[in-house]
Structure formats: structure tokens, C-alpha cells
């Protein structure tokens, strides 16, 4: 399938999802749906680096938070429409992703993962001590109640996140089918052999950290409008770091489908758990599932299905 056809198909699905959710006509569904979609973007973004090139990023929350804080910062200067804020948030996190890639070029495996964790801690400390964006107290963002054409603002935010899902999935699938995708896979498999085959591994790693960071920042940019009151502890929350790893791992990391499935499944499960049990149980569920999958099905749900198809053929 050509990328353009895929994009049109995704847009069609997104439109159906939007009108179906509108038809349900319950604000809660929009609130919960927003969170699930946000996780689709985050895990797709994580997977571009973690799944395609095999570099595990523990600092997803920092890239997400940077996108959110870019919005807070601009909101104080001059309120901009959300699509523009997304561009800015993506640019900020993309540049930080590039910087992180540059600083960690020679690090592999656990050392890379630890470095990303350290970066997240450093950035959180900076934000906590930066009064202009609210420091440790946090910052209020007054969200309009309504928006022209669409109506309730939460529906607008939901639609924006849907659009980001479309963009993220198209980018991920586009990479998989391009030269870049092959290059990323060789980095995951064997960097020495990749270089010997002409793959510029260092440059490709930078492309991956930049793209992945940018998409995470884009996911974070609308967040202050969603939450209304942004604190460092919520923007840098553990749930972002954990979920953006767990969702692709559980869905399957080798293709764009895995993070999508993982995020929808785990995201919905957590929304249901929040309502029926408590929000504290969420990370427990994710952790247990992650352990189970790593042991039983290291290639995730996609891997399970592929294996099943191969056996029945």
C-alpha cells in the first residue's frame, strides 16, 4: 500500500472514530479517549527509537513534558492556536532529542538507557526551579469552554490528538518501508556489520532520537490545555516513561501496528481500572503485564499473531 493511500485510510478511520465518539455524546469518553490516543502517539514515538533501532529510552516523560512546558511558556507570552503549539513543542523536544543523541552516540544498551533516565532527571530539576513556567507550584492554563465549529473544547483536543495519531502512524509506517527503516533495523541487529554495509549508523541514530523526541513533544504540547493545571510531577510522571516502553513491548516492537495495539489495549485497561478500582493500580497492571510478556511473548501481541498464522498455514 502506498503511503498516500495509507494516510487517506487513517484519516477516514480517524473521522469515523471522532463521529462515533461524538455520537456517544459523553464528555468522559472524550477525556479518556484523549489519554489513550496520547499513549498511541507516545508509544509510536518511543518505538521509532526503541523498537526500530533498539535503543531503549527511559526518558520519554521528559520529552513529553518539554512539549507541555513549551506550551506553558508560550501561553504566558502570547496564546497561540494549539496546532502551532504542537509545532513548537515538537521542535523543542526534537532538538533536545538530537542533543541527547549526540551526547550518547557511543553509549549502548544499559548505558544508553541510564543516560536517558539521567537526562529526564536533569530536565525535571530545571523545570522545577524555573519560576516563569510555574516552578514546583505548577502553572494554570485557562481552557476555553467552547471552540467554533466543534463545540466543547475537549472534543477539539480529542480531534487534535487523533490528528497526531494519524501523523505518528504515517511517519512510523513510512520509515518501515523506506531505506531508513532498513538502516534502523541494521543498527538494532549489528552496528559493525551495518557500517561495513555502508550504513551511516551515527547519523541514523541522530535521526531516530530527533524524530522520536519530536513526536513525544508534539504529544505533550496540548497537554496543559487538557489538564488545566500543569505540575512538574504530572508532566514528568512515571506513567509516561513506563507506558511508552510497556505499550510497544506488549504490542510488538517490529512494526507500527504493535505500539498502536499495545497503547489501545493498555490505555483502555488503565482508564477502566481508574474508574472501577483506583488510579494507583494502573502502573501495577502495566508492570505485571510487561513482565508476563517479556517472559512469555517477547515479540508482543503482533509476534504471537504472526507465529499463530505461520503455524496454521
Amino acid at each position, binding site marked *: 500500500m502506498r503511503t498516500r493511500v495509507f494516510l487517506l485510510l487513517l484519516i477516514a478511520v480517524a473521522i469515523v472514530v471522532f463521529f462515533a465518539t461524538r455520537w456517544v455524546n459523553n464528555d468522559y469518553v472524550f477525556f479518556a479517549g484523549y489519554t489513550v490516543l496520547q499513549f498511541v502517539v507516545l508509544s509510536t514515538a518511543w518505538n521509532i527509537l526503541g523498537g526500530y533501532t533498539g535503543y531503549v529510552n527511559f526518558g520519554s516523560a521528559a520529552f513529553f513534558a518539554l512539549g507541555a512546558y513549551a506550551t506553558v511558556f508560550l501561553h504566558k507570552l502570547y496564546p497561540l492556536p494549539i496546532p502551532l503549539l504542537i509545532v513548537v513543542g515538537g521542535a523543542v523536544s526534537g532538538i533536545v532529542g538530537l542533543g541527547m543523541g549526540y551526547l550518547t552516540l557511543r553509549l549502548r544498551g544499559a548505558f544508553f538507557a541510564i543516560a536517558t533516565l539521567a537526562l529526564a532527571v536533569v530536565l525535571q530539576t530545571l523545570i522545577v526551579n524555573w519560576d516563569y513556567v510555574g516552578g514546583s507550584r505548577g502553572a494554570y492554563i485557562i481552557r476555553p469552554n467552547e471552540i467554533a465549529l466543534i463545540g466543547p473544547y475537549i472534543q477539539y483536543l480529542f480531534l487534535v490528538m487523533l490528528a497526531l495519531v494519524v501523523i505518528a502512524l504515517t511517519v512510523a509506517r513510512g520509515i518501515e518501508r523506506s*531505506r531508513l527503516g*532498513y*538502516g534502523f*533495523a*541494521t543498527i*538494532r*541487529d*549489528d552496528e*559493525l*556489520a*551495518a*557500517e*561495513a*554495509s*555502508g*550504513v*551511516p*549508523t*551515527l547519523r541514523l541514530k541522530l535521526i531516530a532520537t530527533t524524530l522520536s523526541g519530536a513526536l513525544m513533544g508534539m504529544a505533550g504540547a496540548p497537554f496543559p490545555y487538557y489538564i488545566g493545571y500543569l505540575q512538574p510531577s504530572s508532566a514528568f510522571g512515571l506513567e509516561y516513561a513506563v507506558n511508552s516502553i510497556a505499550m510497544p513491548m506488549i504490542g510488538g516492537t*517490529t512494526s507500527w501496528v504493535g505500539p498502536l495495539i499495545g497503547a489501545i489495549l493498555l490505555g483502555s485497561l488503565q482508564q477502566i481500572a481508574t474508574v472501577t478500582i483506583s488510579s494507583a493500580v494502573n502502573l501495577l497492571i502495566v508492570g505485571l503485564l510487561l513482565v508476563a510478556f517479556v517472559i512469555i511473548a517477547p515479540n508482543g501481541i503482533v509476534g504471537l499473531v504472526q507465529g499463530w498464522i505461520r503455524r496454521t498455514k
Partner: protein
Amino acid sequence: MAGALLEVTGLSKRFGGFVALDGIDLSVAAGERVGLIGPNGSGKSTLVNCICGTLVNETGSVRFDGETVDGLLTHERTRRGMARSFQLPRPFTTLTVADNLRVPLLYTVNARPGRALSPTELDARCAELLQLVALADKRTHLPRDLTQVEMRKLELARAMAAEPKLLIADESMAGLSQSEVDDIVSLLIRLNERGITIILIEHIMRAVMKFSQRLIVLVSGKKIADGLPDAVIRDPEVERAYLGQ
């Protein structure tokens, strides 16, 4: 040597206190077929790694195709026309056998100036290369489905896919049957007749003698002989250090 394709001068490499290569000088002319032999641990693979940039040598210099390549990354050297197979095959484990060959086509052949191969041409080229090393029926398999011998053939095919000026085959024939060895040797000779310069590192003397126009012997990181194959294997020093053991 004027017009040398590869020129190594004073190349030394240490691992900690251990001197793996000690002031290696060698030169390979364009179009030549050179055999590189030496006992296990004599530094042959290390020399390949230094020539191709996989390892960084402390002293000495490598010139390729008229320019020094010191300081260039491995992929840049590959794009300039060096290709090597690894002694222990290092396939891309999550890519199919055909896609393993697609990588050098995409990143080396298509990265050179001139017209890039179209997707159909890429498929055709992969199929052609797999045919050459008799792996055509494993096209869609993952490398883990291959035997050790097939893995070596894939390793060699991947180096050939980069359309190199200089191909270095590092013990590609270990474990192959006699007829397979003969197949690979004649394949390498055919490639050479098409203008590719080849360095063959090999323990199977029959293959080395059949292939080489010149023989270089490495012992304990030093070059001890370099000349016509028949003369080199009769060299008393070579016999003592290598063949006599």
C-alpha cells in the same frame, strides 16, 4: 607501487599491552588476487578491521584508490569501494536473507553518485546475488534458519552486494565441502575477472594456491613473506613459522 589500489604503511595495532599488528606494510595493485595467510591469532582479521575502519590503528596509514582513508568511518570506506566479510558471520538477524543483501545495495550502491537502483532492480539484484551463492531458495528466510555454511555464503554475498573495488574475504570457506570450496574459488576468480581486486584470507591451502597470484604471510603480527605463492610456501621462514607447526 605506483597505481596501487590499497597501500598500507607502517600499520600497528595494540590491544592493551598486546601488539596484534607490528608495522605492517603492504600494497595491492588494482585487479590483483592476493592470498593472506598465517596461523590463528597472527592478526589477519585485525588487519582487515584496521583497513576497513572497524578498528582504529595507533600508527600507520591506509591509502585506498589514491587517497588516504585514515580517520574515515567504516561506512565511508565501504562507499569508496572496500567491502569485507566477517570471519564470524554477522548477519542482520531480523531481516530476511534477501533483505540482508538489500542493505548494502541501498546504502552503498545507491549512495554513490549516479542513478539509483529502482525497487524492481533492487529485487533483481538480490535474486542474482543469492543465485551466485546458491541461496536463492532461502530468500525469504531469516538468517537463523541458515546453516553455518549458508551463513558464510550470505556473509560473502553481502560484501559482494556493495559492488566493491576491493573485496576482502575473511575465511569464508571454513566448513565448506570440497566442491563448495571450488565453487567459491571460481566465483571469486570470476569476480576478479570482472575487475574486482580481491584479498582472500584462508586456511584451506588448496583454495589459496588455486586463487592467489601473490601470497602474503603474517606471523605474530608481522609480515614475514610477500611474493609469488610457489616461492613463498617454500620459504624456510614460512615453513618454520607456519606450515611446520
